[in-house]
């Protein structure tokens, strides 16, 4: 039986305005387990949007520490984090808890490649907020082969991209890669005799593009958990903030893609 309406009661419900969206399945949002990989600019914005949207069970993976140059685009990082050399994942988890007291964020301070494989299967959704192609390929493979939807975001200056990979029929991230991706990925790991040198180019980044890309990512996450697959991106979104254009594009499934061969 419906509870009788009381004066002002709708303003005491944190999620009242969300409940007014007919297709949004908030109970599923509350229950969903989300793995956010990367706690940089995109990871901060994605975690913020997830928390405000009602996601409670958010695991955040990152091995890095907060530095001063993060502060122009990371909502959860402070000067104190810089001085304390806080772990990014822990700082984001703290921020999520502050935004939503009934959330259960969990910080995982390690490289994504060192996270046990089983971790992926324990989540309903993986959000890629990474800064390199190698890690994207690892997360894409780990999520796709375990049947978990992967939503990947990428930014570079005023350019952004979101791709949604829905196993088992949909194209995965690697289906859309070509020789330039392989070359860019290999550049990160160049062998100089005995040692492997890891190059980490400083890519251009700013908050407005990050905000746009993270908003699209979390909106797609809401559709996934609400089981509105017909509303999902098919299957990539490109954004160019310099020209103010955005467009949906199709990345077709590649039958020769190694991720699909191994599945």
């Amino acid at each position, binding site marked *: 039986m419906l509870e009788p309406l009381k004066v002002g009661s709708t303003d005491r419900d944190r999620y009242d305005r969300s409940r007014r969206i007919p297709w949004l399945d908030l109970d599923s949002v509350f229950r969903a387990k989300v793995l956010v990989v*990367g706690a*940089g*600019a*995109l*990871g901060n914005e994605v975690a913020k949007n997830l928390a405000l949207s009602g996601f409670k069970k958010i695991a955040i993976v990152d091995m890095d520490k907060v530095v001063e140059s993060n502060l122009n685009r990371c909502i959860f990082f402070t000067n104190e984090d810089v001085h304390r050399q806080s772990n990014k994942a822990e700082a984001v988890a703290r921020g999520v808890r502050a935004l939503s007291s009934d959330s259960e964020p969990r910080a995982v301070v390690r490289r994504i490649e060192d996270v046990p494989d089983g971790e992926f299967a324990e989540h309903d959704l993986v959000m*890629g*907020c*990474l*800064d*390199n*192609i190698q890690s994207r390929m690892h997360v894409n493979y780990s999520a796709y082969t375990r049947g978990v939807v992967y939503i990947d*975001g*990428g*930014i*570079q200056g005023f*350019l*952004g*991209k979101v791709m949604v990979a829905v196993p088992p029929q949909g194209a995965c991230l690697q*289906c*859309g*890669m*070509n*020789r*330039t*991706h392989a*070359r*860019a990925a290999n*550049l990160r790991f160049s062998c100089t005799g005995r040692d492997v040198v890891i190059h980490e180019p400083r*890519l*251009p*980044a700013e908050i407005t593009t990050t905000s746009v890309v993270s908003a699209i990512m979390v909106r797609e996450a809401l559709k996934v958990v609400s089981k509105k697959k017909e509303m999902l991106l098919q299957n*990539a979104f*490109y954004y*160019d903030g*310099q020209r103010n254009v955005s*467009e*949906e*594009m*199709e*990345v*077709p499934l*590649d039958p*020769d893609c190694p991720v699909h061969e191994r599945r």
Partner: protein
Amino acid sequence: MAVRIKVKNAETGATVEMELEVENTIDEVIESAATFWSKDMGAYVLRRGKKVLRGGNTLKDAGVIANDVLELIPDPEGG
């Protein structure tokens, strides 16, 4: 068989005309165009209309025909 196509630089709007064999691959087109425009050593994709073309495909496999306009787009790597 040779075909002439145009490749557009999504970042600047510039175009370049290319004469290619139908057996040339999309990877080759991407690399040639990126080199022509002295692009950074990043990842790029080529699209035809709303579809991203597969790197290993030949122009013939990808259904690219004479006078097509393909667009070279950076694939953002950062997070």
